[in-house]
């Protein structure tokens, strides 16, 4: 089972984990992305996320389907935030349950690594004295 979402509301980690629970699963692996306070020594004030929502949902779904084909997993959840986030807020939650832990760990890592490469979502870091779109320039 797959659950994909882009939300303008705060992500609820507990309910994400509860969704992934299953009698067939012997383990649940969770990745929680959080907004860090510093980038290259500069204080981060906030992050602004932009998403091409229709395509982003498709790409997130592809990731979930790919990892279901690669590993014996039970449930996969990928939720991502849109909008303005502050330090400590949660931009992304990925939860993978599986019968055995190795598949859950590997699939969860694949999901976050691939999301960062393929899903059309962009973040702008806003500092006290400026701002930048992450990864935009070499």
């Amino acid at each position, binding site marked *: 089972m797959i659950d994909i979402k882009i939300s303008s509301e705060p992500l609820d980690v507990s309910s994400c984990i509860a969704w992934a629970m299953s009698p067939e699963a012997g383990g649940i692996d969770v990745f929680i992305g959080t907004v860090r306070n510093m980038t290259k020594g500069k204080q981060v004030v906030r992050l602004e996320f932009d998403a*091409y929502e229709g395509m982003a949902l498709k790409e997130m779904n592809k990731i979930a389907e790919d990892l279901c084909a690669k590993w014996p997993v039970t449930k996969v959840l990928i939720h991502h935030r849109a909008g303005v986030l502050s330090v400590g807020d949660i*931009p992304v939650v990925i939860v993978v349950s599986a019968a055995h832990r190795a598949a859950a760990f590997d699939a969860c890592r694949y999901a*976050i690594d691939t999301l*960062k*490469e393929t*899903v059309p*979502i*962009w973040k702008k870091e806003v500092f006290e004295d400026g701002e930048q*779109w992450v990864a*935009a320039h070499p």
Partner: protein
Amino acid sequence: MKVLAFGIAREIFGSATVEVAAGSASTAAELQDVLKLQYPRLAQLSSFMIAVNGEYAQPGTTINEGDEVAIIPPVSGG
């Protein structure tokens, strides 16, 4: 042809969409060239992709009338 823009591309265009003359680009690679000429700041990006109907386009992917076309600057989700 209307091109959707996100992230830094929206700031470069100064708008969420940009209009490209119909017939000036029939493939994704041609559209990249046309956009780079119109908006030289795009050439300073690490890279940028074109999406057609919500899928990443290959350079030779054809763009047809009515397609949803978007410019995808380097992604940075997560």
